[in-house]
């Protein structure tokens, strides 16, 4: 089974929710997600951020849904790390 272990996303978001709440909401999309968020650029109404997510099996749909629920817009998937893991039995 091929699982996504790491994702780096380029996202445009409004100033609110702030980076802390934003990353917490993304992290809550999975049980073991670790999120790093870097603000790359700040404009008048928006900010461009880079989110790095680490997890055992990242659910991209859930992450994208968390981002859009906070008004964010996914611009690009900049980095992906996947692993083919043997299924027991």
């Amino acid at each position, binding site marked *: 089974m091929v699982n996504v272990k790491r994702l780096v996303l380029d996202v445009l978001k409004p100033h*609110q929710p702030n980076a802390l709440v934003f990353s917490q909401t993304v992290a809550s999309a999975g049980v073991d997600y670790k999120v790093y968020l870097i603000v790359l650029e700040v404009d008048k*109404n928006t900010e461009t951020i880079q989110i790095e997510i680490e997890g055992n099996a990242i659910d991209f749909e859930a992450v994208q849904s968390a981002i859009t629920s906070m008004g964010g*817009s996914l611009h690009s998937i900049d980095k992906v790390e996947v692993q083919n893991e043997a299924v027991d039995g």
Partner: protein
Amino acid sequence: MRLLSQAKFLLDITCTHDIVRRYFVVNGFDGALTMLGLIIGFLITAPANLSVIINVCLGAAIALGMSGMSSAYISESAERRRALGKLEQAMISNLQESAHGDATYWLPLLIALVNGLAPFIISLLILLPLWLSNAGIPLPVSPLHAAIMVALLLIFLLGVYLGRIAGISWLRSGMQTLIVAVVTAALIYLFAGH
């Protein structure tokens, strides 16, 4: 509890805490001063039946509540829609399904509720001595005087609340609002007392 945290989240992302607080104080103050004016008006005219006074004041309280609710809803809906439109332009995307879209729908309702309930509840508290007296419960002073005392106390407390928000002396702030109430009472006595 979840509803409260969701409301707090929506207030956070739209930075509207201060608007809700302002509406609460402004319209609460309106309600208290209106009741004070009505009760002083009854006090200085020919004695009226207590149930008549209660009905007149209750009518005014309901009207204040409805006025506060409808005006806040209409103005806040327009403001929220405008803010969402500006944000959508900046994001170049539709935000209706996001928390910002939810805020555009729910916050005007919340603000309208605060703006309507503040004068209504404050008015009901001021009318409490009149109800108690009407129900046959004895009061240490006349019901109209007791209602005026409750009104002055609530106006003072609104000032204390403002003082705490501003981080200035609560006593000074409370006294400021109390002075407004006393001046209002004096003006009513001056113009309606003769």
